[in-house]
């Protein structure tokens, strides 16, 4: 399955965030608990970690991009092979843990 | 600075204020009479690198610092030839180019300003220290305690010179301030402090000199309390609350007479010499008055200048 990766909102007092650093590229496999991407809010850096294993398939918001909370930042998959859908809208969410540091 | 020079400086202040006090345009003034030794003793330890700030009782400090008496009189009488163009008056008299960063009429208001000047000197590694003369009346204000704290923390090259004449206008020190010895106010901050007889110009000078050397060496601030007597009323607009007998006893402690007596005892001065010095001072004061009187009044167009 292909999933969408987003920071679930709402977050109190945070509207938009900046993508700081992806800790991988399309094809990178993440174990549960691994750090996938760092985001920056006006207050702090948010570490987004995988809550289950998966493969990063496509980055939709590269480093330096700004995004609203809740918007899709990347597509994740169970494996590398499955073709990506044209429309990311109806995809299920890929569960993440995030910590505001 | 020689002892004779100290005497001349005090005489100049006394004569200047005597001339001012009888002038029809005297206006609202705070006089330093009786407190000359504190201003003169402090200034004797300063160089041209240093800056002096004072309270609204600025005439003694300004003249002791070496400002031209004619220019000072002009400022007090609201003339355009004063260093502040007549716009500051006694309460805001200033001539930073002469090392007198200035007076500020708000009680305690110049203390944090002085600390800021000291910070600038420290950050820019300029030679020079800052001295702020303030009265016992400022010692209850938060401004003093906040400034002592920061001066100690940052080891600012700042000397706190408290001119303790025992009065906040009509309130004696004992009813205004809990500490009897005001130099004790600095001790909790770890700032070296001393109380001297403020009527003894040599004692004031020597104490200031020691603290100034420390500050110049980067060792930080110090607090000097000089216990003085105020000969006149708090201001020309305030009533005297002390009795004639009290005043007679107070005037007997005159710092000028005291130094003159010392010099006479040591053979550096005789009665005729003293009389000559007194005449010189009176003449100089008269010249200052004449200069001020001959100067144009402050220009009304100045209301629009230097506002922003």
């Amino acid at each position: 399955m292909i999933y969408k990766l987003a920071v679930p909102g709402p977050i109190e007092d945070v509207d938009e965030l900046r993508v700081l650093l992806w800790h991988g590229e399309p094809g990178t496999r993440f174990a549960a608990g691994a750090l996938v991407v760092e985001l920056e809010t006006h207050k702090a850096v948010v570490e987004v970690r995988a809550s289950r294993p998966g493969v990063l398939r496509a980055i939709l918001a590269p480093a330096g991009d700004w995004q609203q909370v809740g918007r899709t930042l990347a597509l994740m998959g169970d494996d590398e092979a499955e073709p990506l859908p044209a429309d990311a809208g109806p995809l299920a969410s890929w569960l993440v843990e995030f910590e505001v540091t | 600075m020689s002892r004779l020079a100290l005497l001349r400086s005090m005489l100049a202040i006394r004569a200047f204020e005597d001339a001012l006090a009888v002038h029809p345009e005297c206006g609202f003034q705070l006089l330093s009479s009786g407190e000359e030794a504190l201003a003169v003793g402090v200034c004797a330890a300063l160089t041209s690198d240093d800056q002096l700030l004072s309270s609204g009782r600025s005439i003694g400090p300004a003249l002791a610092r070496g400002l031209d008496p004619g220019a000072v009189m002009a400022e007090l009488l609201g003339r355009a030839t004063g260093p502040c163009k007549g716009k500051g008056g006694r309460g805001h008299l200033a001539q930073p180019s002469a090392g007198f960063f200035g007076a500020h009429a708000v009680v305690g208001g110049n203390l944090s300003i002085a600390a800021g000047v000291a910070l600038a000197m420290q950050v820019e590694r300029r030679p020079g220290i800052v001295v702020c003369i303030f009265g016992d009346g400022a010692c209850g204000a938060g401004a003093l305690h906040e400034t002592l704290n920061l001066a100690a923390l940052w080891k600012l090259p700042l000397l706190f010179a408290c001119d303790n004449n025992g009065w906040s206008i009509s309130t004696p020190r004992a009813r205004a301030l809990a500490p009897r010895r005001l130099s004790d106010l600095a001790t909790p901050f770890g700032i070296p402090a001393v109380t001297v007889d403020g009527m003894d110009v040599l004692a004031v000078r020597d104490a200031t000199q020691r603290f100034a050397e420390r500050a110049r060496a980067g060792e930080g601030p110090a607090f000097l309390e000089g216990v003085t007597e105020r000969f006149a009323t708090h201001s020309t607009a305030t009533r005297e609350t002390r009795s004639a007998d009290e005043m007679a006893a107070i005037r007997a402690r005159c710092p000028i007479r005291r130094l003159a007596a010392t010099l006479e005892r040591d053979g550096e001065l005789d009665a005729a010499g003293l009389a000559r010095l007194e005449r010189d001072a009176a003449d100089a004061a008269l010249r200052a008055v004449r200069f001020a009187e001959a100067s144009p009044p402050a220009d009304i167009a100045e209301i629009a200048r230097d506002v922003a």
Partner: protein
Amino acid sequence: MSPDAPKSTRLFFREAIARALAEAMHADPRVVILGQDVGPLGGAYREFAGLHATFGASRVRDMPVAENAMVGIGVGAAAAGLRPLVSITYMDFVMLALDPLVNYGAKLRYKTGGQLHAPVVVKATAGAKGQGVAHSQSLESWLVGVPGLTVVAPSNAADAYGLMGAALDHDGPVVYVDHKRLFPTAGDVPDAPVRVPIGRATVRRRGDNATIATHSYGCRIADAAADRLAAEGIRCEIVDLRTLAPLDVATVASSAARTGALVTLEEGQLPCGLGAELAYRVREEIGPIRVARIGAAPAPISGNRLLEAATLPSVEDVVVAVRRLLERPATNPRTR
């Protein structure tokens, strides 16, 4: 975007401030920062982030809670040759610093006949955001009538950057008022080192039916209100004051002369507020005109969420005010 458009970078409001300070501090060793939590913490809103690490503890100094002495030291240091920025975390506490700021800083050039002046920037964060009656006030109107004092208020990241640069360049005391609710916002900031000129308002949004004159966070409320009114066919012009003292009355008057209706919006109190001043000054320029003023309700601003929201001006308040104003008969203002 056309190839000739000036390049810009999207920054958080706080980053725009930090960038202006970093540039100024690199260019001029006299620029120093004094304030609570400005050092390693980088400021309550992280608006000084990185500056302590780059410039060191001598130039970015953490202060104890002592606003009176802190501002006095900043003013005195400015008079003696430094270019300090003094940070007051909550504008409410500028009250403690009014003596050195107003009685010395603002009067220094005048009282010394030009011998001394105090190029100091006092940055204060205004605005209510759940912190209670003594940590929520917008006191700009208390300062705008002080001769010798300049007051500026950015409404967005670009102006936060441009006005900070201008404030640091200015040769007298400047109060730089930002707002708690602006820190979560982001905006495009020109890459070039541009300044926003002091004393000039700007038109943020063009419209013909009503003028809304406001500043700081009020610009965002006005914008949201303008969106709603546009759906009703009412096109609002929003004038962002940017500088509160000296006030750019001409820009507001010129807009109001065209629209024929002026709404002023501030988070501060209405009595002797910016709206009262603008209403009268605009009338002096262009004659009688329909005016409505919006400000906080005349009550302390509780930290209680419900009460706070009911005390502060809302988007709905602006929408209703514009509609009601336009129901009143128009006058014939003199066009400039």
